[in-house]
């Protein structure tokens, strides 16, 4: 998708449980507004489904291995 500034914003997938972080949606239940890029999530943000930390996420479409 494209953000307010016109830049491309990528989705990221939790490699533990499969949850997809969509910057268009954010994670409002945990204070993350729509439009927040994955890279700009606080360091202590965790997967809202399974609690995995940020380093367990892969960019969607990113080749593995």
């Amino acid at each position, binding site marked *: 998708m494209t953000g307010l500034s016109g830049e491309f914003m990528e989705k990221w997938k939790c490699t533990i*449980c499969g949850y997809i972080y969509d910057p268009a949606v954010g994670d409002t239940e945990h204070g993350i507004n729509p439009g927040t890029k994955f890279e700009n999530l606080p360091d202590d943000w965790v997967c809202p489904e399974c609690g995995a930390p940020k380093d*367990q996420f892969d960019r969607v479409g990113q080749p593995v*291995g």
Partner: protein
Amino acid sequence: MKPIKLVENVYWVGAVDWSVRKFHGHTYTTARGTTYNAYLIVDDKVTLVDTVYGPFGNELVERISEIVSPEKIDYVIANHMETDHSGALPQIMKLCPKAKIYCTQKCKEGLYKNYYGNWDFQVVKTGDKLKLGKKTLTFIESPMLHWPDSMFSYLIEDALVLPNDAFGQHYASDKRFNDEVDVSEVMQEAVKYYANILWPFSSLVVKKIEEIQKLNIPIKIIAPSHGIIWRKDPTKIVNAYLSWAKNETKPKVVVVYETMWKSTEKMARKIVEGIVDSGVEVKLYDVNESDKTEVIGEMLDSKGYVIGSSTHDNSMLNNIAGFLEFFKGLKPKNRIGCVFGSCGWAGGAVREIEEIFKTAGIELVQTGLSVKYVPDENEIKKCYDFGKDFAEKVK
């Protein structure tokens, strides 16, 4: 069967399922049956930790009744929502409708979506304490070990860990403790359990164990929700988990194949001979004849994987495909592999399996070996060398 005392005023009140042979639908075989372990703590507040699978609810109630009337239960601890531990919860809550249920937020949501009961849920977080009288419970959230809702409970005064599915094994027995049984059998089941259920969450397993080790709390007994209770040397299973979770391996190869007209099988057997003659431990499985839960268990401590398939309709055969679909979801790390198979004309299976290895992060250390139709003497020799070469890389 009477309740079994773990420590003063703490009892096993679960059920032994001797005859179950499949679990989670058909994803897991339970060759040795299983148990559903529930625990009763008798203090000023009578507390039940987890329940059992629904069909065993009457046994749970009978066993609790040997100690205390179930109506007297004040607290129920739900460490995990899954039905093999919560199935008897509605039956219990009918007997003690005012009991408070302590669990994580995710567990509360999941229990409601399973049973739609209007029960008195009390959400707990890591570090919360619950005073039962003389004894005190504390909780450690353990998301994805093995569902988002999972948590461990810890009975402080008895240094008793109640980690639900973690450290469990599908193992039916007339005995309850590891110092009463053949531990090598129990460990085989613990390996299968880790490999088939917890392997994908290994990075979280390491973090959780290190988090608990940093707390520096004494651990005298680990009482999981399936199988045998670790009473003797309980840290042994914790260290085994750390080793598996860190993807530590030994020089060992697992060869799995599927064959149409036995050519791929001939190749598999010769590859195995090459590995054996190199002095490396190896196991060979025909995917159609083997217990896949056991095969995955054998893969847990193995450095090398060799997969073979005949080509059918330009693709690998469908049962090895199903096996690999499950396998890649386990996210093994630090492994090497290679692929082989027989085909009639253009092939396809070897390339396809190599792609799966790449996606799964398995390092392909030698070019795949394809043979047209039935391998001749020269090709059989190539299979032997293929095995030998691979064994050298596994060492």
